[in-house]
């Protein structure tokens, strides 16, 4: 008797479930587990001990009383809010510009904005190292223009907004192409006759943007915002390079995700238990903020409207 074949839908579902389990749930559970143990210096044996909420207590104590850790919290908030704004609004503006300029020129224009994303992190970091360090391009320009009288170490000495501006600027450049490409294709997906109808109805560019294009791409706006929010909470590659090379001051260039990384793998400390607690906190905050954004932007209302049609 041949065995009955597994029907394809079940096959796909079980495959997806497997992937989610291996690459998402298992690390999450391991992190949660590790945060309840005293594991340090990769001493795996300690994973069997159990210290309850001790690491969380330590973590909140650090946030309250360690000025460096509380700076990390502030940096994270400023970085995420600032870069998110740059990425979403910048992405929108670039998409609009790409949509309005001529078709052929538009492709080159869009590719240009992809360069920061495609450039290896180290190369991109080096570029901005040469731009921002005291003897770098930025100071040279400012000196030429007589805006400053002697070189300024923007990332180290101008606290807190020097390093904050730099990390927002660099990550904004990296992330802006994401929103741009999604908004651009969303604008392209609106039927041409809708634009034409609006023009015939007397619409100016401003009316097209605010009354037709933006309302019709709400979904994309919600999606890009939430997606970028979550990626910004967890990103640290560019920040790592900027901090490591001293472009920015350590604690004002370090977001929570980088703090987790440093705590777990950094040269000074190797406190995986504390890092796990910090990572778990990040996941919880991330989920909370994501849901809040969805609610604020009316995602549920939209979903409800669609359900009503089914």
């Amino acid at each position, binding site marked *: 008797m041949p065995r009955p074949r597994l029907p394809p839908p079940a096959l796909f579902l079980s495959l997806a479930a497997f992937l989610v389990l291996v690459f998402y749930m298992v690390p999450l559970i391991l992190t949660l587990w590790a945060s309840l143990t005293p594991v340090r210096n990769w001493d795996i044996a300690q994973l069997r001990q159990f210290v309850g909420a001790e690491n969380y207590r330590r973590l909140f104590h650090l946030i309250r009383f360690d000025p460096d850790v509380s700076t990390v919290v502030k940096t994270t908030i400023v970085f995420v809010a600032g870069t998110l704004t740059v990425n979403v609004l910048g992405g929108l503006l670039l998409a609009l510009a790409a949509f309005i300029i001529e078709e052929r020129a538009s492709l080159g224009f869009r590719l240009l904005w992809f360069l920061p994303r495609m450039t290896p992190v180290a190369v991109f970091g080096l570029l901005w190292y040469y731009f921002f360090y005291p003897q770098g391009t930025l100071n040279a320009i400012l000196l030429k223009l007589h805006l400053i009288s002697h070189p300024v170490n923007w990332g180290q000495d101008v606290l807190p907004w020097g390093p904050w501006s730099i990390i927002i600027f660099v990550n904004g450049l990296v992330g802006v192409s994401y929103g741009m490409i999604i908004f651009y294709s969303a604008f392209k997906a609106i*039927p041409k006759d809708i634009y034409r*109808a609006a023009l*015939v109805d007397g619409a100016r560019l401003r009316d097209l943007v605010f009354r037709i294009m933006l309302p019709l791409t709400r979904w994309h706006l919600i999606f890009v915002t939430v997606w970028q929010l979550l990626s910004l909470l967890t990103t640290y590659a560019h920040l790592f390079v900027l901090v490591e090379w001293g472009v920015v001051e350590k604690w004002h260039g370090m977001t929570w995700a980088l703090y987790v990384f440093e705590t777990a793998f950094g040269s000074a400390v190797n406190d995986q238990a504390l890092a796990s607690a910090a990572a778990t906190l990040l996941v919880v905050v991330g989920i909370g903020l994501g849901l809040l954004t969805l609610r604020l932007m009316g995602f549920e209302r939209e979903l409800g409207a669609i359900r009503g049609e089914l």
Partner: protein
Amino acid sequence: MVEVELRGVWKRFGDFVAVKNVNLRFPDGKFSSILGPSGSGKTTLLYLIAGIYKPSRGEILFDGEDVSRLPPNKRNVGLVFQNYALYPHMTVFENIAFPLTIKGLPRGEIEERVHSVARMLHIDELLDRYPHQLSGGQQQRVALARALVKEPAVLLLDEPLSNLDALVRLEIRGELKRLQRRLGITTIYVTHDQSEALAMADLIAVIHRGEIQQVGSPEDVYRRPRNLFVAGFIGMPPANLVKAAVTRTPTPCVVIAGGGEYCPGEPLASKLEALGLEAVVAAFRPEDVVLGEHPMEDYVSMEAEVYVVETLGRENLVTLRLPDGQAVKAITSPLLNPRPGDKMYVNVEPSKILLYDPDTELNIEAIEAAPAARPVSLAGSPERRRAAQEED
């Protein structure tokens, strides 16, 4: 209200010529129709008038004023799109109000004007709905309301009835015509459906491959097709086009297979002579055919064999074959019900027969004088089409 005129208008998309040297005048306050098959350039022509496309060459005038370079929002035209193009995120009210909202009119005036146009089109019950909650016919009315609410100088309609079922179409057709009469707006109605054009328009412009083939009243276009394309396009079914030889005895006579002979009187006879044609295409309408067992006195009669009989309810459509194999269609009373294979006579009154030059495809009556002076404005002939293409 304005008169719309196109002077030598061309439109190219890359190498493709979509509209070719169009000269047209749409009279003030009249209902004109642009009629042509799919892909003939109707929508392109309408978009040129609306300002959505800029002409590659030529100019467009509203009341004698050149508007060719004006963008659509400066032309005060109302346009009903082929697919309606309603704004999906706006209610019916907001859709209709859109042109007024953009102008920044006061709320009260907007409400009043939207409600009045909605009442006129019987959609005042639907104002709170979204476009996706409407039927095709209702969407069409909303699109029309949006075009009318700004009281445009020109109303442009792009096959607005093509998505509707036959019954609704007939109903809206009547309403639209009455509405246009009442408002007196210069209206240009694009359609591929000749019965719509014949029923509604004061003036019809037939377009084919981007070129205007004939401009005239429905009567003109129907009774005196300017060239073979128009003859073969207009009518339900269109005119029979039969190849025929010309004999000279010594006056010229047209000889059709199956014994049909037609010796035209003046001035047609001398035109035929002047052109020196050996062959012509004879055209006559299926409804002008009298089918009988015998040839009829004073008619041109051809013997033919019945091939198919289609019952259309009010009438029968009989397809016959002439002895040389050419097909001829005849509309007959439903009482006459011949069987395939029967021999019958196709009788046509001589005055109902039109003759066309097979080379230029032009109606011989319409050709002015000697062959050298053939008119250049209407190009239906293969050579001329080729010549025009080479010129591009």
